[in-house]
């Protein structure tokens, strides 16, 4: 088992307030890891550390070591753009650019200079859309606005946009919370397919979703990592009483 991301003694502060307390958690390559926990437990904050999304928050300070392929992403002079080519992200609300479906997907490959040949870019866009399970539905209207798609399709477009730059890791912050059950099922099935090629880390409030899609689950509470392990174990016989109480609906 190879780790895609390793984290060591991560502490995160928003001003004086500590949001993450000394968390060390590794993410296995080509596995889906779910981060669960009540609101304010630090799971999204932690997720956002993994591609330095917290950099833009001025009062936010990240301590500790986060490495991708043994490279410390907060040191080693890594450019954020370079990092985010490796670590893509999909958000809670689908947020396609106000551009065509085609340009949404082509945006990343263009800025990273993947190619300037039209036919090659067509291929990149088609491949990403196919991997995101959207190609068949949009192939005849690639010039339509991304925002004209349904919510579920928009989210898959965002996934296509994320994978177009060939990342190693995809972070998903509650990717289905704005979607109906069918669109959710499609995304969940997609997650299972995508892990063949990518490492996926998903924050979710839905315990059932975490149970359905993930291989590993980590439970956060008040900025602490309470327990992590195989998803089947976490949801059937967690070691920690707090984990048990949270996932059975006794608090949170």
């Amino acid at each position: 088992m190879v780790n895609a991301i390793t984290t060591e003694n991560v502490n995160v502060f928003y001003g004086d307030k500590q949001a993450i307390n000394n968390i060390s958690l590794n993410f296995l390559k080509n596995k889906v890891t779910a981060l669960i926990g009540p609101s304010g437990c630090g799971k999204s904050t932690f997720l956002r550390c993994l591609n330095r999304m917290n950099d833009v928050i001025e009062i936010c300070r990240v301590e500790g070591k986060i490495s991708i392929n043994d490279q410390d992403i907060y040191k080693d002079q890594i450019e954020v753009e370079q990092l985010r080519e490796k670590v893509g992200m999909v958000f809670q609300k689908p947020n396609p650019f106000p551009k065509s479906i085609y340009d949404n997907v082509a945006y990343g490959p263009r800025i990273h200079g993947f190619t300037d040949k039209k036919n090659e870019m067509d291929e990149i866009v088609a491949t990403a859309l196919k991997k995101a399970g959207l190609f068949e539905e949009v192939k005849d209207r690639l010039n339509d606005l991304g925002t004209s798609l349904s919510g579920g399709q928009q989210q898959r477009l965002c996934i296509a946009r994320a994978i177009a730059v060939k990342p190693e890791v995809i972070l998903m912050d509650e990717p289905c919370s704005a979607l109906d059950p069918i669109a959710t099922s499609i995304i969940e099935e997609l997650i299972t397919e995508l892990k063949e090629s990518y490492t996926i880390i998903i924050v979710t409030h839905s315990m059932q979703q975490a149970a359905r899609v993930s291989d590993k689950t980590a439970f956060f509470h008040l900025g602490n990592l309470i327990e992590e392990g195989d998803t089947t174990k976490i949801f059937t016989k967690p070691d920690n009483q707090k984990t048990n109480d949270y996932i059975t609906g006794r608090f949170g």
Partner: protein
Amino acid sequence: MQHTDKNYENQINLINENLVKMGSILEQQFSDALKVVASRDQNLANKVIEKDDLINQLNHDISDLVFQIIAMRQPMADDLRFLFCSIKIIRDLERIGDHLTTVAKKGYRVSTNIPDQLIEKLEVLGGKASVMTHDALNCLFERKLAQADQIAERDDIIDTLHGNFIKDVLSYMKENDDFIPDSLALIQISKGIERIGDYVTNIMEEVHFLIEGKYNNS
């Protein structure tokens, strides 16, 4: 800690209460069935037989509730283990009820000419199985792992006593062919009690799973 959703908490509690009810009825049935064997009291036998309906009803009530909770609430962790364990345990409890009915039905018909020593041996066997059942039910409600494993081991004693009793009855039958039907009834009673030991062992295995999330031998 209680569930945030009080209705959920109440549903889980209701299952537990019904299990307690089922257990206490069975314990009463067990005690009465053994008295029937000793006294051949037909009225008491009928009481045992009638109570079987209650056990069957509780079996269905618990089963329905578990089914509903699984459909409506997608239980997890200790709730899931408890529901999974309950659904298996109630089957065993229901079977124990059936065997006690057999003990009562056969018990009051056994001739009073059967030697006391045989009846007493049956009472010893029944007494052991009855205490085992009582301890098992306590263990289920108190969730004590060490006890669960220890109680399951007692089934060997029940099996040995049953085996010895069968030998005794067979020797008696050979000498007293007028009492073959009564001897067969004794064998059926003993077999019923021996089976109860097996069901109690199953229940203890489920309690082990309930507490540990895995079976004792896995």
